[in-house]
């Protein structure tokens, strides 16, 4: 029985998920309130925007790139979208129309930043890290400048309800995250462009010679990533009822960390949607549990670091047991 379990564990690529389950069980015993309906809902809600943003990042990383500008994308689309919707700025549409327009504008902002990144990386041949580092600086500065640091509020109710509304008993954020995951899964596993993304990540030259539209593939990944970040911004903005120019500025390492811990390679060509889901689950659980235990600020950081290291070691030992000795 144990031997079978062990063999299954050795073979499967779900080890991070198992780690999550283990962590969940342990935490349920030692933390009051962890294993409760309310907390599970919390977990789920905290997870969703992060999942959406991370899925976009996964696509970019599959091509061998990286997108550091997701935080500024979230901030900029939050304030731009909010200023279209806010009753203060007085565009004067009726609430549901302006919600519609607002979300549309947010997604367009995301796509536009993605397009800038993608074009710079492909057509101008700039390294992704530097491109997105500078666009991060630029667009987050732009968001702050645009609003002069002020938050934008008085958003229409129909927009605010997004984070609490349900569609056939499934909350909208969950629907959105599931939707993004399904789309990403569909694209990566069943379409031509999905195959192209992996091929580009594994070897650009081979891909180009084999007729892959390399530039188009990479650009679409950055655009997709930007749209995902913007979608994350929709959920965040709706949840906080505020368009904020510094929204999401601290989630960058969480997102990239989650994707990489899930197993997606930083060098491209290797990664899966479900891995990223597990990675995000791992990071969120970690935060949630440590938060509930009531550890102090710095202990949470120390433990978080140690657990990440621990997970990585487990994963390595699984793949290469010889390193244990």
């Amino acid at each position: 029985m144990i031997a079978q379990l062990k063999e299954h564990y050795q073979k499967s690529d779900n080890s991070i998920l198992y780690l999550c389950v283990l962590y969940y069980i342990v935490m349920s015993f030692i933390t009051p309130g962890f294993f409760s309906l309310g907390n599970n809902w919390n977990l789920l809600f905290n997870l969703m925007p992060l999942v959406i943003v991370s899925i976009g990042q996964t696509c970019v990383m599959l091509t061998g790139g990286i997108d550091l500008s997701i935080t500024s994308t979230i901030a900029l689309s939050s304030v731009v979208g909010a200023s279209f919707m806010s009753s203060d700025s007085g565009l004067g549409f009726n609430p549901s129309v302006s919600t519609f327009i607002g979300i549309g504008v947010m997604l367009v902002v995301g796509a536009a930043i993605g397009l800038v990144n993608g074009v710079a990386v492909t057509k101008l041949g700039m390294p992704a890290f530097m491109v997105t580092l500078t666009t991060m600086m630029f667009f987050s500065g732009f968001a702050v400048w645009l609003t002069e640091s002020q938050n934008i509020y008085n958003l229409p109710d129909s927009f605010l309800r997004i984070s609490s509304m349900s569609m056939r008993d499934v909350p909208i954020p969950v629907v959105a995250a599931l939707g993004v995951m399904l789309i990403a899964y569909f694209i990566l596993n069943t379409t031509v462009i999905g195959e192209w993304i992996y091929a580009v990540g594994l070897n650009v030259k081979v891909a180009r010679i084999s007729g892959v539209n390399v530039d188009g593939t990479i650009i679409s990944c950055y655009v997709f990533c930007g749209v995902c970040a913007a979608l994350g911004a929709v959920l965040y903005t709706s949840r906080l009822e505020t368009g904020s120019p510094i929204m999401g500025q601290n989630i960058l390492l969480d997102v990239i960390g989650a994707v990489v811990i899930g197993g997606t390679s930083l060098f491209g060509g290797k990664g899966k949607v479900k891995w990223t889901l597990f990675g995000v689950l791992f990071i969120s659980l970690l935060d949630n549990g440590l938060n509930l235990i009531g550890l102090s600020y710095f202990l949470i950081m120390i433990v978080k670091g140690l657990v990440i290291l621990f997970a990585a070691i487990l994963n390595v030992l699984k793949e290469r047991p010889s390193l244990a000795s």
Partner: protein
Amino acid sequence: MKVIQARSIRKVLDHSTLILFAAIVITFGFLSSQFFTFQNLSNILIQSSSLAIIATGMTFVLLTAGIDLSVGSTMFLAGVVSAKMVAWGSPLWLACVTVLLVGTLYGLVNAFFIYRFKIIPFIVTLATFYVGRGFGLFLSETRAMNLPEGFLKIGSVSILGIPFPVLVLGVVILSAHLALSKTQFGRQIYAVGNNAEKARKAGMPVDRILLSVYLICGFCAALGGLVAIAQLGAVSPTFGKQSEFMAIAAAILGGTSLFGGKGNVFPGTLIGAVTIQSIQNGLVIVNANPYLYPLITGAVIFLIVLIDSLRHMQEVKSRRLGASF
């Protein structure tokens, strides 16, 4: 005619980083007469010394295709440990030596996990990034700490007319440059960065080389931290935050590749760090609107990277043409 033109374009592109650096300096010089004073230029050097020292260590790591996200935490830890030691009555020199040891030790921890368990550097240093800051916050009880006069004196003395931070910077850059370009160890770093597997096959001490670059990076981070606090006279809980990104940016701006094997400390990384600092300095000197800082900084760095990649494309083309002769 066409050839001459092409050649002169290439000449310009070859020294793009330097030329752009000059352009920045000249632009600010025009905007403010204060910029071009000896005092201000030496200010720029003093202010960039800490970043340049950290970026030097980072360059070693980047050359092996690694990355170290934990340098900011190491800086912070260095600051906290030194402040604590001095507060407990230890002599200054002992505090400094201990701090450098702590930094090196931190590098050792990174290297240990990277080469003992073969975990990718990104994850290891992400984990130590959290642990380091958490531990520093624990030691400092998340409070700002002021350092005694003695520290500030180190920061402001001049030896033979050279300000102390610049002197330290000079020694670091010189020894790093010598080590990278004139020693066997240095050349082997480039070899490992190009292809670790080949280097191993060729019988190079790959593990030892990887170990040493992380040690060097940890040491430089601690030293950079010391240089910074010697100027500041205090350590706040946010000390060193985001330094890892700035250090990486400085190195890449100086021509170091994230994929290993390419780059240098002198003039590359030094120019990178000084460029970043000059922009900041110039903006203050001309009393620019504070909101425009990130916009201008982002845009200028983007431009530098763009020109650099155009040069690179040109180079690849001409190299291919020259290959068979």
